[in-house]
C-alpha cells in the first residue's frame, strides 16, 4: 500500500472493538472484547501519525515504544512489532486488556484533540495475542551469574522483576502463597475481561524461556520468613500486593450475605465458583445485590454478580445489581470501558449514595441497607469535591447480598519477623521511588505493596526498575 498522507490517516475513524452481544454475555463468563482482526489492526495502525515527539510514550508508565511497534505492525512486520513491544513490556496481552489507556497513552494521543485517539491498547493486545501463539521473540537468558534471587508474590510486579532478573542470567525463584501464579490477574480480574489462559500462557512462556522456578503454596511469614530467605538468596524482591480487604465500618457487617469483593471474586475467579458444583467452591448470589464502591474491583464484582444471577436463573435474569457510590459519575475511578460495559449489561448505578447500616432479618441474613443521599461540596485545596450527607435523606434499599469493594491495603503477613523493614502508617513498604530499595539490605519492593492498590502497569514498572537496581547491586 502506498504511504498515506497525514490527512488521509486522520480521515480514518477509530475502529470499534468487536464485542460479545450484551444480552448473551450477561449469561456467560467468556471474554467480552473479542479482539481486532489482522485487517482491522493494520487499518487502525494506519491512523498513527508517527509523531516526532510522541506524547503517548510519555503517558505510558513503562515507556512502551508505541510509534515503533505500530509502524512495524502496519508494515506487516509482526516479529518486529513484538520485539519493539517486549523491549519495554513483558506482558502485552495482559496490559492491552486491562490498562486504563484513556488516562495513559491514549489520553495523550494527539489525534484525541480533534477526533479519537489511536486505539493503542487494542493494538497492544493484538501484538500480545499474536506472540502468545507464534512465539517469535523468545526471551533469552544471559550466561548464568550464579546469583540467587527470590521474588515474593507472582503478580505483575513480581513476574516482571523475575523476568528481567532471569534475562540477566540470575537464578530466580518466585514464592507464591496461592496455588496458582498471577496475583490479582488470576484471583481478582474476571475471565470475561482477562481470560486465565492468557495469563497462564504469558507466565508459562516467560518461565520456559528463562528457567524461573515458581514455588506455589509458600506463604512468606509462615512457611518461610524473609529472614529464612535471606540466608539462602542474594537478593529479594517483595511484590506481595495489597490483598487485605477493608470492611465498611457500619452496623450489620457480619450478617450472612455480606462479603468483601476479594472473597466474592476469589470464589468466582480463582476457585471457578461460577462452575459449581462441577468445581467444589460454591458462591452464593442473591436476587438483589449491592456492590459498594466504583473502582475496577466494584465493576468486576457487579458484572460477576449479574452473570451469576443470569446463569442461576437459567437465562432470564429477574434480579438487580446496584453499584452504590458516594460520589458522582465524574469521579468514578474504574476504567471507562468497564463502566460502559457495565451500563450496557444493565448494572444500576446509585451515585451520591452512602450506606449507613446493613439491615438483617431474624435469621442473621441481610434484608436491606439503609443509605443516605450525598452531595458534593465545593472543591477543597486538592481540587477534590468531598461528598457530604444530605440531612434527613435516609432511605432503605431492599437487598439480600452486599459486596464491599472499598479498597485494600498490604497484607502484613509477609512482614512477620521483619520489624526492621520500615512501613508507612498505611502499612505500605517504604521504598525508594526509583530503585525500589527498602530500608533492609538486599531487599527491594514494588507494586501495590509499596503504592497501595494501583494498576497492573505501574506494578510492572516498579518490578522493572527494581530489577535494574538489583542487577546493578548483584553485578558490583
Amino acid at each position, binding site marked *: 500500500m502506498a504511504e498515506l498522507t497525514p490527512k488521509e490517516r486522520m480521515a480514518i475513524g477509530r475502529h470499534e472493538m468487536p464485542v460479545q452481544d450484551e444480552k448473551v454475555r450477561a449469561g456467560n463468563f467468556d471474554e467480552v472484547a473479542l479482539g481486532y482482526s489482522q485487517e482491522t489492526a493494520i487499518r487502525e495502525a494506519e491512523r498513527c501519525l508517527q509523531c516526532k515527539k510522541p506524547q503517548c510514550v510519555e503517558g505510558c508508565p513503562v515507556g512502551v515504544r508505541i510509534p515503533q511497534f505500530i509502524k512495524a505492525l502496519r508494515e506487516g512486520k509482526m516479529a518486529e512489532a513484538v520485539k519493539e513491544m517486549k523491549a519495554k513490556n513483558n506482558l502485552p496481552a495482559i496490559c492491552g486488556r486491562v490498562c486504563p489507556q484513556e488516562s495513559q497513552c491514549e489520553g495523550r494521543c494527539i489525534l484525541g484533540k480533534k477526533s479519537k485517539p489511536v486505539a493503542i491498547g487494542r493494538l497492544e493486545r493484538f501484538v500480545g495475542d499474536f506472540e502468545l501463539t507464534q512465539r517469535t521473540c523468545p526471551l533469552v537468558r544471559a550466561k548464568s551469574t550464579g546469583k540467587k534471587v527470590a521474588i515474593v508474590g507472582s503478580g505483575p510486579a513480581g513476574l516482571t522483576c523475575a523476568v528481567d532478573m532471569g534475562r540477566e542470567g540470575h537464578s530466580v525463584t518466585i514464592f507464591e*502463597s*496461592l*496455588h496458582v501464579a498471577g496475583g490479582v490477574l488470576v*484471583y481478582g480480574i474476571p475471565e470475561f475481561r482477562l481470560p486465565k489462559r492468557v495469563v497462564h500462557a504469558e507466565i508459562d512462556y516467560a518461565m520456559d524461556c528463562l528457567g524461573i522456578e515458581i514455588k*506455589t*503454596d*509458600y*506463604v512468606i511469614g*509462615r*512457611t*518461610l520468613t524473609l529472614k529464612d530467605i535471606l540466608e539462602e538468596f542474594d537478593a529479594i524482591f517483595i511484590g506481595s500486593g495489597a*490483598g*487485605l*480487604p477493608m*470492611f465498611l465500618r457500619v452496623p450489620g*457487617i*457480619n450478617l*450472612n*450475605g455480606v*462479603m*468483601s469483593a*476479594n*472473597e466474592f471474586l*476469589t*470464589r468466582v475467579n*480463582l*476457585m*471457578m465458583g461460577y462452575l*459449581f*458444583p*462441577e*468445581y*467444589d*467452591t*460454591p458462591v*452464593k448470589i442473591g436476587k438483589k445485590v449491592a456492590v459498594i464502591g466504583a473502582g475496577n474491583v466494584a465493576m468486576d464484582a457487579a458484572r460477576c454478580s449479574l452473570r451469576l444471577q443470569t446463569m442461576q436463573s437459567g437465562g432470564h435474569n429477574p434480579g438487580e445489581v446496584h453499584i452504590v457510590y458516594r460520589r458522582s459519575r465524574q469521579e468514578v475511578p474504574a476504567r471507562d470501558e468497564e463502566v460502559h460495559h457495565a451500563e450496557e449489561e444493565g448494572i444500576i448505578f446509585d451515585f451520591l449514595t452512602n450506606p449507613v447500616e446493613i439491615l438483617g432479618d431474624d*435469621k*442473621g*441474613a441481610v434484608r436491606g441497607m439503609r443509605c443516605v443521599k450525598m452531595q458534593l461540596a465545593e472543591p477543597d485545596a486538592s481540587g477534590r469535591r468531598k461528598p457530604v450527607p444530605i440531612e434527613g435523606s435516609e432511605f432503605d434499599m431492599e437487598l439480600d447480598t452486599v459486596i464491599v469493594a472499598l479498597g485494600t491495603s498490604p*497484607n*502484613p*503477613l509477609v512482614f512477620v519477623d521483619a520489624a526492621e523493614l520500615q512501613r508507612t502508617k498505611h502499612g505500605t513498604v517504604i521504598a525508594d521511588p526509583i530503585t525500589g530499595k527498602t530500608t533492609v539490605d538486599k531487599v527491594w519492593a514494588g507494586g501495590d505493596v509499596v503504592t497501595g492498590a494501583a494498576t497492573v502497569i505501574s506494578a510492572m514498572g516498579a518490578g522493572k526498575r527494581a530489577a535494574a537496581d538489583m542487577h546493578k547491586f548483584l553485578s558490583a
Partner: protein
Amino acid sequence: MSEFGKGYRILKKEILSDVTKLMIIEAPQVAKKAQAGQFIIIKIDSKGERIPLTIADYDREAGTITLIFQEVGKSTIHLGTLNEGDTVDTFVGPLGHPTEIKNYGTVMCVGGGVGIAPIYPIARALKEAGNEVISIIGARNKSLLFWEDKMRAASDELIVCTDDGSYGRKCLVTDPLKEIIGGGKKVAQVWAIGPAIMMKFVTLATRPLNVPTIVSLNTIMIDGTGMCGGCRVPLKEGAQFVCVDGPEFDGHAVEWDSLLGRLQFYRDEEKIAADRFKHECNLDKAMRRQ
C-alpha cells in the same frame, strides 16, 4: 484428579472410626515450621476447594504432617477415599498463630469429636512445659472416640465421656468440666476444641468462674492468609480473621450466635456437593462392577 508426580503424597492412612480418618502427608516445608495450634489448607485436585484442617501432629525429621478429619462434606469425604501413595494438589501452611505454651499451673484440655485431634498436641506441649494437665475427651458415641491412649499419656488425668454412654461416662464434656472448676480446683486456663456448639457451652460453663478459656475456631476459609475475610469471626470488640488473627481466641469474647449463623451460610451448597460426590462414587463403583 491430581496429576502424576505433582503434589503432596499421602504416606499413611488409618481409619480411626467409620467417619474419622488419619492421614500422614509429606510436606517438609510445612513440618519444619509447624507448631501446636496451627492449621494447614488443603486442596485435593484442580477442581477442589481449599479447606482448613488443624495440624494433629508433625514430624520435622520425617517432614510429615498428621491430619485427622471427620467426613462431613464433599472435600473430607473425597479425601477419605484417597489412599497411601496418592497425592493432593495443594497443601499450605503452617497457618495461624501457634498456641501460647508456657507453665500456667493447672490447665484443662477439652476435646470434642474430631477436636480430640488438635487438642492432643496442645495437651502434650502443655505437659512438657510443666503444667498439670487435666483432659476431657468426648464424642457422641464410642465409635467416634480415638486417641484415648495418646491423650492419657499427655495428661495427668483424663476423663472420657460419650453422649449415649456407650463408653466412659454418659455425659457431655461440660459436666466433668463444671465439677472440676466448680469443685474448688484452681484452674489457670482451659482449652476447648470441638464443634462450635460444644465450644460455646464450654465458655458458658467457665465464664461464671472467670476461668480464661481458649477456643480454636474452624470457620469457612478460602486463602487462609487474610485476603478474603470470609473467615471473619464476630468478637465483642469487632470482627477478626480466624486464619491470621486466630485460630485461637478468647472464648468469652466470641459472639457465638452470630458465628454459628455464619457457619450455616453455605449449608445448602455443601449438601449439593456432598450428594453429587457420593452419587459419582456410586456410579464409579457400579461401572467397576460391570
